[in-house]
């Protein structure tokens, strides 16, 4: 391994050498059943006392072969499956898939559908970040924020439920647009939520942002430099916390994002605290987008005319969106039949998790937990 | 009243046990613990005589002994730890090189 690769964090088939342990070193298996590995992640830590000398993420406990399943389902049939990848941000997953297939078909959803998609996707971003905030704070030992976060998330899930009948794995969109028209009080619900939500974020920040212990636990912990982040393919809030202003919504606008004003929050130092601040700021931005969008939902059709049986022309397409956790991409190859020839998902959690090894070196066991939390992984997406 | 000789006898037994421990065990930590036992036996003696003569001087001595034991434990264990780091053993028999 040359020095450049080492610097970029590309190990050769990386694994911990457990045969030779230094004095005072122990191997600690964190997970797959550990309260704060957020699912069934297993991390093998080589510890010197409480300091991490080396780490290895072992994944695959939740592998369900989602990509393989796609090859035996028709395009619309596969859409519900993508909800099960990042199950706390199902709407975003569905959005990415639907838009990718639309691109493959050469179709485009009507404006009304695109705006509604934007609203729901941004609400989903807030919901996902709320869940992250709660569990992250819980990992660091703050018991209370999770209940506040869940309370607000519940409001969002209620909106989803009223819209499409499901709360978690929503399958809210269809290829070509929306299946359902918005319900009567949709605008009012979204607006009321967004208006209340501003002060709710302030509440969370009161509990955490300037708390000495919180700062002590997160500042300078799990630092990821911008170069490392880019080299490792890290995206989303983790990347932006390292100072790289990259957001698919701005760079390659999709849905209706080009219509709205919003900022891409970034921070400089790329530590856990910055990732926290970036996500908090993103929630505020998502709220602003929702407020802008909900005021002028265009009238019109919600479904494009794409026919009953979807047979995209042979070819391939890559489409990515900015999911709550980072760039969520779908690479779909069509052979002209009703089933995709190959679907490859670029899950943000999987790539972000790669940075863990780099962040955790030299950290303490308590920091490991904070770092995992700050990456915001969902194992359903990592393992697919 | 229990005659003071009983206390002295108890002290003697503990002292002897401590001596045997120091001389026979190979593990340095246990040797150090045996030394603590010896100091403890001395303390019983001191306190018993303090009680016999109705003066607290013996107790004050015992306090000094405890302070000494604390110092000894701290330094002794420090040495043991350092030794263990370098040689991966805490056996007295293997401490035969006069260097780390």
């Amino acid at each position, binding site marked *: 391994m040359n020095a450049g690769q080492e610097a970029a964090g590309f190990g050769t088939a990386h694994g911990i050498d457990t045969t030779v342990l230094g004095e005072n070193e122990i191997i600690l298996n964190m997970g797959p059943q550990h309260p704060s590995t957020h699912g069934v992640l297993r991390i093998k830590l080589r510890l010197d006392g409480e300091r991490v000398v080396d780490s290895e993420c072992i994944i695959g406990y939740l592998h369900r072969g989602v990509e393989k399943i796609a090859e035996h389902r028709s395009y619309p049939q596969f859409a519900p499956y993508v909800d099960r990848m990042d199950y706390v941000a199902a709407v975003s997953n569905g959005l990415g898939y639907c838009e990718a297939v639309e691109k493959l078909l050469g179709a485009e959803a009507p404006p009304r559908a695109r705006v509604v998609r934007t609203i729901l996707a941004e609400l989903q971003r807030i919901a996902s970040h709320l869940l992250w905030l709660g569990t992250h704070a819980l990992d660091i030992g703050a018991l209370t924020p999770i209940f506040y976060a869940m309370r607000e998330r519940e409001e969002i899930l209620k909106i989803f439920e009223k819209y499409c009948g499901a709360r978690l794995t929503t399958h809210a969109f269809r290829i070509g647009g929306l299946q359902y028209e918005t319900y009567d009080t949709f605008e009012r619900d979204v607006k009321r939520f967004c208006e209340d939500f501003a002060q709710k974020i302030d509440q969370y920040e009161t509990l955490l942002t300037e708390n000495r212990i919180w700062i002590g636990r997160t500042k300078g912990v799990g630092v990821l430099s911008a170069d490392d982040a880019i080299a490792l393919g890290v995206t989303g809030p983790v990347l932006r916390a390292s100072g790289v202003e990259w957001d698919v919504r701005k760079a390659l606008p999709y849905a209706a994002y080009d219509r709205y004003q919003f900022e891409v929050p970034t921070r400089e130092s790329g530590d856990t605290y910055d990732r926290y601040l970036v996500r908090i700021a993103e929630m505020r931005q998502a709220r602003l987008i929702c407020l802008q969008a909900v005021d002028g939902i265009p009238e019109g059709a919600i479904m494009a005319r794409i026919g009953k049986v979807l047979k995209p022309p042979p070819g391939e397409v890559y489409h990515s969106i900015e999911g709550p956790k980072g760039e969520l991409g779908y690479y779909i190859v069509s052979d002209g039949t009703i089933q995709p020839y190959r679907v490859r998902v670029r899950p943000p959690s999987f790539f972000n998790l790669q940075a863990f090894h780099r962040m955790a070196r030299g950290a303490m066991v308590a920091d490991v937990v904070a770092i995992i939390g700050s990456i915001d992984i969902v194992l359903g997406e990592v393992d697919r | 009243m229990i005659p003071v000789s009983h206390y*002295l006898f108890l002290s*003697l037994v*503990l002292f002897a046990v401590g001596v045997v421990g120091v001389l*026979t*065990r*190979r593990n340095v930590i246990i040797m150090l613990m045996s030394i603590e036992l010896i100091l403890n036996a001395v303390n019983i003696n001191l*306190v018993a005589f*303090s009680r016999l003569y109705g003066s*607290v001087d013996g107790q004050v001595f015992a306090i000094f002994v405890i302070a000494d034991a604390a110092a000894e434990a701290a330094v002794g264990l420090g040495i043991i730890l350092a030794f263990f780091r370098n040689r991966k053993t*805490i056996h007295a028999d293997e401490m035969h090189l006069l260097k780390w």
Partner: protein
Amino acid sequence: MVLANILFYFFALLAVGSSALMITRKNIVHAAVFLVTTLLATAGIFLQLEAEFLFVVQILVYAGGIMVLFVFVIMLVNLDIEMRAVRFNGQWKVAGALAFVLAMQVLTALWAGRKTFHLPAPPTALAAKNTEAVADALFSHFMLAFEVASILLLVAMIGAVVMGKRSAE
């Protein structure tokens, strides 16, 4: 005072028994536990001798401080190797002889002084104000020794820090 006498023999037996177990256990943690028991039994004897302050100091410093340090260090060193090692070295004869000689010496002394060694009735003033009495003696008559002891502790502390510090390997 019958109860007090019973207590003495109880504590004495406890101390002797657990000290004997202490030097024979294979597992160092067990040995440490038995040493703690011995120390607590000794503390009981101090209480029975109406040295209340020393009783508390024994628990606080010996059992609660020094022995915790021992246990801590025991956990730092690798026990698996120890469990398989030979427990005793070959100095039984020397140890036995030395212990025997010591025992004879003390027994002779005890025999010689058997007439004088009886505890007088407790001087109540001493018992009631034990802590104050100890403090008075410590900070007047034994002031110099006290200061020396504190310097000793300081030196030991620095020494322990230097020893325990990881050298730049």
